[in-house]
């Protein structure tokens, strides 16, 4: 892979650091009135999710990471791997392990699209879309007429996620959920 010199550092750049693929979140050049310039870089380790700040001097460079993001459709799980299929017409399939699926596991619904990050050709992480629509499989019975009050109750979805929903929601309803916050948005439009 190519090398990036510190002058090419920018947010979004994917680089290898300490043997792990990382993405740059922020890059700030700092320079004293006289003297050596440095780059203060905020990075997220794509394997561990850890975010930290590191400093490079202006002549340092980093190896590019072979990391690519693809839209893929979730197919099924065999208990060990969660299988996804490319949506580019190639029908190429990739099995992501539990670590790669991570927190996304609770938002998975068959035939929905997810962003799968491949590192050296293998799934490294799976990101859900910002909004998903899921069916409620478990919740207390809905309270009719209680649509205006702010009360909530827990509801569990077909995917396994449990979130707080308004009191009027019933089992079997399909809800729109913001995966970034884990919050109820609305009933899905049918």
């Amino acid at each position, binding site marked *: 892979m190519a090398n990036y010199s510190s002058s090419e550092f920018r947010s979004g750049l994917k680089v290898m650091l300490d043997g792990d693929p990382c993405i740059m979140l922020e890059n700030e050049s700092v320079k004293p009135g006289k003297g050596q310039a*440095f780059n203060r870089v905020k990075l997220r380790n794509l394997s561990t999710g850890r975010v930290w700040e590191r400093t490079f001097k202006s002549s340092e460079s980093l190896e590019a990471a072979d990391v690519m993001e693809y839209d893929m459709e979730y197919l099924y799980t065999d208990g060990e791997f969660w299988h996804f299929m490319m949506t580019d017409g190639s029908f190429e399939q990739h099995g992501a392990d539990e670590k790669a699926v991570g927190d996304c596991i609770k938002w998975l619904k068959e035939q929905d699209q997810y962003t799968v990050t491949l590192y050296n050709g293998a799934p490294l992480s799976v990101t859900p879309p910002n909004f998903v629509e899921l069916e409620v499989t478990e919740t207390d019975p809905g309270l009719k007429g209680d649509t205006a009050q702010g009360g909530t109750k827990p509801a569990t979805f077909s995917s396994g996620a449990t979130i707080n929903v308004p009191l009027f929601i019933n089992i079997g309803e399909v809800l729109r959920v913001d995966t970034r916050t884990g919050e109820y948005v609305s009933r899905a439009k049918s």
Partner: protein
Amino acid sequence: MASTSTLWQPSCSIEMLKSRAELYAQVRAFFCARRVIEVETPLLSVSTATDPQLESVGASLKTGFGLEGKPYFLNTSPEFPMKRLLAAESGAIYQICKTFRNGESSRRHNPEFSMLEWYRPGFSLHQLMVEMTELISAVLEPVDITKMSYQSAFKHYLDIDPFDVDIDSLAKLARSLTDYQGPEMTRDDYLNLLLCVCIEPHLGIDDGDMLSPVFLYDYPPSQASLANVYQNDDGIEVAQRFELYIRGLELANGYFELTDVAEHGRRFDEDNHARKELGLPTIPIDQNFLAALESGLPICSGVALGLDRLLMVKENTNAIADVLAFPIDRA
């Protein structure tokens, strides 16, 4: 993604253009009232700064019809020609001009920027700091002067003595506080790293709604550049240099100027030696400047102030692109 480019438009507002014009008018009125003469010196020169950390922008110039182009440099500051004017007994002078620094581009840097540089024959470094405070008070808002020596800043913020700490402890501290894991660096590099990351962000932070600029002064002799070096009251050799900070932003760099011609030669040679070590081209020494020193530079203090950054403070923004009509990506 926009299909029609908007890069032809200025990146700052029209109000910002007016604010800059007002700032320049105030600066000129300030110096006019003090009988400091506005001067102009060439942006193009056969020589340039030797500092290994400064890269000049080169130009090929034909000085006559049919002649071959000769290598020239765009100035990194107007320091050398202004000192030639001082040696020619100009008296107090100031200049507002563009300066160029190759490769310096960031949220707070543009490779081409505006500088206000002025020289005061007979002024001590501390007298110049007072005048700088009066200028800030005239163009921004009335401010009180806060001075902090380089040594006391390191003691206060990092609990180390920058003149006394051994290189191993210094390197260890800098690496742990900044997560720098690159190759070993010089003592000055580690000090600069700590200054930039751990000290600068605390300097000149507003006191309520009031600006509270801070001067750092008396730098390590190894960071003297062209400032005079002397022994302070504690018996430590320090460079008579200051930097001005407002809201963590470095705005100005001033010297009690070195006048000794032999010492100039020694520092230029040291810079060019360091350039060779770093694999950088050496810089031809400015012979006109040396000759001017030979003839005699008056005892004086001088300072260079970044005008774009001053405007950033005035307009309360932290991005240089907000105050430039056309930053380098639109130039």
